[in-house]
């Protein structure tokens, strides 16, 4: 029997699109009997907040497909090319795009970020919050979900040095 594989992930981005990879890979790896640590740093830190308020910004993702999650099949195939001066300046544009993306995910049977995070916790995935960026951005441990450890670069590297998979997300 081979020894347990280890997976070391860094979650550095907190938009809705980038919130998915660490929790998908973390939960899947744990389901495959791997030992997982996710190190949350910089803009990944808000993903540890009790309530996740991640949004997506089409303005900064020019290749993002803009389609509607409702209407006829033909209507849903229409690609809406929104000029940058609208996506970047119209108040509430990101909020609208976020709710459309969430609706699309739901229609496609994709779990929410919160569900995937809960599944990670259930499977024993270790969450570590970066102490330095917590201090810089004013995060406190009590605003995070239970079970989060706080640590620094050395703590992550010590785990990652023996890990079979290391990814910066």
């Amino acid at each position: 029997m081979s020894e347990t594989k280890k997976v070391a992930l860094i979650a550095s981005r907190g938009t809705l699109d980038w919130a998915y990879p660490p929790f998908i890979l973390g939960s899947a790896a744990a389901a495959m009997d791997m030992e997982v640590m996710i190190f949350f740093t910089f803009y990944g830190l808000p993903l540890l907040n009790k309530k996740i308020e991640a949004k997506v910004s089409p303005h900064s993702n020019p290749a993002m497909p803009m389609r509607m999650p409702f209407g006829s099949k033909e209507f849903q195939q229409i690609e809406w090319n929104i000029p940058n001066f609208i996506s970047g300046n119209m108040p509430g544009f990101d909020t609208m795009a976020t709710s459309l993306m969430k609706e699309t995910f739901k229609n496609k049977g994709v779990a929410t970020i919160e569900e995937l995070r809960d599944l990670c916790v259930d499977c024993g995935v270790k969450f570590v919050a970066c102490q330095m960026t917590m201090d810089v951005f004013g995060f406190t441990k009590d605003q995070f979900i239970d079970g989060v450890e706080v640590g620094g670069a050395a703590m992550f590297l010590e785990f990652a040095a023996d890990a079979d998979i290391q990814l910066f997300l």
Partner: protein
Amino acid sequence: MSRESFEQTLDCRGMSCPLPILKTKKTVNSMADGDVLRLLTTDPGSPGDVAAWAKKTGNRLLISQVESGVYTFYIKKTLLRGMV
């Protein structure tokens, strides 16, 4: 369609990656060694995912098949590896 006797069914139709794998793991954990799980999915990525999951966790994938968009897997919970 090949068939196999099974102890439990897990219906993951309509769910996307990685949910079928996560739910399979949870269900298999609650089963006894040697029991067979019948898993239903519609995610086109699931044949590869289920096979990879079974290989990594040492559980035996007995049958993997598809009929009219529904994938059916029979997985035998196997605690001891290399005892096939």
